[in-house]
């Protein structure tokens, strides 16, 4: 690739490419071309989307079909329906596509011009959906950070440029001072999307004010919250938006070097970033004299190696410097003394992903979205016991109920909602009564949870809240860096108490002990991980205290989840003797004649619950 030396040259690429790609966003695009878009996000890739792409290309070549291109894209969002294929410009959406379906899609859709009805997606209410935007899932969403995900091929820089890519950088370098850039970000009201919600403009201005010969821009892509994959999807679907924003940040704070710290467990994201950086360098959009303006900035990748705590900004810096990821005590803050002791700006992926749109559309536009204190949108990774598992981006202020029920399509298997967990191991469980809380930083922390990076796990009535607390503590204990006493030993002791409860070995007073210890750790731990580790416990104690009491006082698990406190039983009146449970039992613990009520041998049963899920008559219960 040739270096793009001037603004005019990049504008030329943009205009040409934009016309070519109009069909991606315009239903009525004036073209004979068709683009078959296949999701190559991690989820769909795991279910063989690369093979789908390969098959499409092979069939098209064999059949000599013209004017059809197969494009890999980032995540469309509705992971539950993956692998997803979308054909544009008509925007037809096929779900759960298998590699062997490619032939039929080509023959029926492309050649004959008809829909492959069996692959169309059914919405929760059963209606057949033809187009993506007809799905309820998308109706309340607004995509800013995910704007290009599912639209462009993330490995082709021209496609990014076509959709206003690097236009913000152009604007910044040619017509804005550093102060103006920071002011724009400040006025937009953008706050850190990593969880704590620190005003981004403030962070930029602190780092800009620090005096040093060298400063750094760091992107925190160490998304370790289990069940969260927002940042990964952005990097996989639109890596240049992060590179561009980091470059803008470099200009604003006076840095010439950036680092992206990304988990090695995200191989696709890492590879896309590598390609993107290479292409940006080749175009001269990274390196010396960017777009002929004399501004110099470059970005390198640093891989994490499996430590949740490295998402904490100072631990991340330690890790980039090649050491154990143990947080540093603050102050000094990274804005004054960060990477290699130099002033450093650290933002998370999603935060950066908002920057280019703010620059292009202006702070006023951005701050018109959202609530009083929280502006713009937030991406959530919606998972757990919810129908539409996937990635959603909603304006701040959207309620949890809207996300779980309108977008997420509610709880599967006719079960009841019990709690929504936000903020991962640092957050809390939110019960039904608070479902109408509008999502913003303040209101979530007021109800004992936190925004967090965007994991949103839905739990149905079969989940035991004591066990959920135990799960999170188990996570924290194994991810604690071990540096400070409260987190190193305190969380372990909390876990031991929770384990006792789940095993029916709790002692009177354990709840009070747990609560006291939780409050103490919250105040005395060194870093954010330790200080927030008790949240899952404190929030469940607040909203589901009776479940704790049942475990401790009566040795019962009301949800019927804790294995030591309950057995699986087949209710003879409901059992039709179909034998499905018997066939699916991994340990052959179920016996019974056909059409006769079956029984479970509790001495053999491992309480895995397979039979409960398999039983068509809901005859098997825990208790």
């Amino acid at each position, binding site marked *: 690739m040739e270096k793009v030396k001037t603004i005019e040259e990049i504008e030329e690429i943009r205009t040409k490419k934009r016309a070519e790609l109009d069909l991606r966003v315009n239903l009525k695009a004036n073209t004979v071309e068709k683009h078959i878009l296949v999701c190559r996000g991690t989820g769909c890739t795991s279910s063989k989307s690369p093979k789908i792409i390969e098959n499409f290309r092979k069939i098209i070549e064999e059949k000599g079909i013209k004017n059809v291109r197969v494009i890999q894209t980032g995540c469309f969002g509705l992971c539950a329906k993956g692998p997803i294929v979308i054909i544009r410009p008509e925007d037809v959406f096929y779900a759960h596509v298998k590699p062997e379906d490619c032939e039929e899609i080509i023959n029926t859709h492309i050649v004959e011009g008809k829909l492959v009805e069996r692959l169309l997606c059914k919405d929760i209410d059963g209606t057949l959906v033809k187009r993506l935007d007809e799905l309820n899932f998308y109706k309340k969403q607004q995509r800013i950070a995910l704007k290009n995900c599912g639209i462009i091929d993330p490995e082709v820089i021209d496609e990014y440029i076509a959709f206003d890519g690097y236009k913000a950088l152009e604007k910044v370098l040619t017509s804005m001072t550093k102060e103006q850039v920071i002011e724009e970000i400040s006025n937009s009201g953008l706050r850190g999307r990593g969880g704590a919600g620190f005003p981004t403009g403030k962070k930029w201005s602190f780092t800009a004010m620090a005096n040093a010969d060298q400063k750094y821009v760091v992107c925190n892509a160490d998304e370790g919250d289990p069940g969260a994959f927002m940042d990964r999807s952005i990097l996989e679907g639109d890596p240049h938006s992060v590179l561009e924003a980091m470059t803008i940040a470099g200009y604003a704070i006076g840095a010439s070097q950036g680092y992206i710290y990304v988990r090695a467990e995200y191989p696709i994201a890492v590879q896309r970033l590598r390609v993107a950086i290479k292409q940006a360098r080749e175009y001269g959009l990274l390196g010396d004299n960017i777009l002929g303006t004399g501004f110099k900035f470059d970005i390198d990748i640093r891989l994490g190696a499996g430590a949740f705590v490295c998402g904490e900004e100072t631990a991340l810096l330690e890790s980039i410097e090649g050491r154990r990821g143990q947080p540093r005590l603050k102050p000094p803050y990274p804005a004054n003394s960060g990477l290699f002791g130099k002033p450093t700006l650290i933002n998370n992926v999603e935060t950066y992903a908002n920057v280019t749109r703010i620059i292009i559309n202006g702070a006023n536009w951005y701050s018109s979205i959202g609530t009083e204190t929280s502006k713009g949108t937030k991406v959530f990774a919606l998972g757990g016991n919810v129908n539409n598992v996937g990635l959603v981006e909603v304006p701040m202020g959207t309620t949890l109920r809207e996300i779980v029920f309108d977008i997420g399509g509610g709880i599967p298997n006719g079960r009841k909602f019990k709690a929504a967990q936000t903020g991962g191991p640092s957050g809390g469980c939110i019960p039904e009564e608070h479902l109408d809380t509008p999502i913003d930083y303040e209101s979530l922390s007021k109800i004992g949870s936190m925004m967090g990076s965007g994991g949103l796990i839905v739990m149905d009535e079969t989940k035991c809240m004591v066990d959920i607390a135990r799960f999170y503590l188990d996570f924290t204990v194994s991810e604690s860096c071990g540096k400070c006493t409260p987190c190193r030993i305190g*969380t372990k002791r909390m876990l031991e108490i929770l384990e006792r409860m789940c095993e029916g070995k709790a002692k009177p007073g354990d709840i009070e002990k747990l609560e006291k210890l939780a409050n103490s750790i919250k105040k005395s731990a060194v870093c954010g991980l330790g200080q927030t580790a008790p949240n899952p416990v404190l929030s469940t104690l607040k909203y589901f205290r009776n479940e704790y009491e049942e475990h401790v006082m009566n040795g019962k698990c009301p949800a019927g989840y804790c294995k030591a406190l309950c057995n699986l039983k087949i209710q003879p009146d409901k059992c039709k003797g179909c034998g499905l449970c018997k066939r699916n039992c991994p340990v052959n613990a179920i016996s019974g004649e056909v059409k006769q009520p079956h029984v479970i041998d509790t001495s053999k049963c491992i309480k895995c619950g397979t039979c409960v899920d398999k039983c068509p008559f809901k005859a098997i219960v825990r208790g």
Partner: protein
Amino acid sequence: MINLTIDGKQVQVKENTTILEAARQNGIDIPTLCFLKGINMAGDCRMCIVEIEGRKGFATSCIQVAEEGMVVRTNSPEILEARKTILDLILSNHHIDCLTCVRGGNCELQQLAKKLNIREIEYEGEKLEHEIDDKSPAIVRDFNKCVLCRRCVATCKKVQNVGAIDCTSRGFTSTISTTYDCSLNDVDCTFCGQCIQSCPTGALREKEYINEVWDKINDGDSYVVVQTAPAVRVALGEEFGMKIGTNVKGKMVTALKQLGFDKVFDTNTGADFTIMEEANEFIERLTNGGVLPMITSCSPGWVRFAEKNYPELLDHLSTCKSPHQMFGAIVKSYFAKKYDIDPKKIVMVSVMPCIAKKYEASREEMEVDGLRDVDYVLTTRELARMIRQANIDFENLEDSNFDDPMGEATGAGAIFGTTGGVMEAALRTAADTLEGKDLKDIEYKEIRGEKGIKEATLNIAGKEVKIAVASSLANARKIMDKIKDGKCDYHFIEIMACPGGCVMGGGQPIKDSKTRATVDVRKLRANSLYSIDEKSVIRKSHENPALKQIYKEFFGKAGSHVAHKYLHTSYSKKEKYEI
């Protein structure tokens, strides 16, 4: 100056003073555990937390700098409760056996438990179990008593630049350990023992040889000779509540005699021998084009460091044995013959301020004609334990003198115990020899003091002699890297492994973190040695009459064949890791 309020008291402190320092300067104590001034200031343990008005959460007083107008509370009920919980947690993972622990009574954790009035452990749970590492001849590592303060890690890494131990694993299973959890014996540890000095509990301690020594004293057949290093006499008293740096030579000798040693000798005399040989070796190298710079070799931690890290530069090390090894060899040869004692029955015990001497005594080179130079090395602390065991009322002992014929040492031998002392002692003899006269100006003040590396250029007999004195292995590494890069024009270098020299050796009485932060222990002990030197009638090693007699009767002259047999040694490359 900064004005702030601590516990309602208006105080004024210098800029960049931490809250902890500010409080202590004003008579308010804040408990600490992981804090070790200048070495470990990481704020990990959370004992020193305080409240600052208007701030969320607790502040870490050992790091947080005092700011104008701050209002600090160090003892609110909430803080006291939080500290208690933290200590409770630490104790819940601690193998509590204070009654039999070597640090019982001198343990910072125990002091904290007392201070915070811990009566029971509320949060009992799993305790980590680790095997005790006692493979090395010098250091025992008992992780079961570790509180993860990491003072030892910081000391090993920052002060010594060795890094034999580090934090491994993470979370609750975090451990202070070596690579692959090997014994210290098999890794890059030099046995300097500074980690023991830093340890607030009994997790790191010396390998004790007290019982073996008692057995020899009591077996009725052995002739047990003890020698004491110069630095021991200025520190032993601290174990009995005396002021830091008190010279207890007379009481110490009396105590040793009461313990039942057959002879009580002074290692300072051994030091005089070392100077005779070393000064001679230096003059030889200087005048005959030998390998320069020559580096002293009386610090075994340093020698092991050199053998593991700079095997290609071992020619620079003086071949002289260290004073106590020389002395041991002399006792088992000259002394045994002169007094007609079967040398095989002689048991040589050295009381040293040093941990690495235990290892040094076990080196295979330290043997002449099948006789070990030294059989047992005890630290200053172990001697104190023996004295307590024997119910000796140390403070009220009468003074007595070291035994003849080697009882009278010089001032030069005394200052061996502090950084710069070996060099100064050697220069006194070398300068006299080179100049051929009895020089009066014998105090080399430029190489005294606490600086890690001290340099001087001297004019001796018309020759420019460049010297350097380094203490701590981190400083040793700096010097060695310079030599390696060919950028070193010194002629003579003194290196001691412990920062400050032997007075601050790993075997000396352990001072808690607060004492180390507020008192210059090194200076007090070193000054005591300099004052011994000042008061000495004879201040040059080569003028020691006993020494002159022994050279006359036994060795001939310095550097002779016989001297080499008994007083010199050799070095060889040691694998850094035998894992």
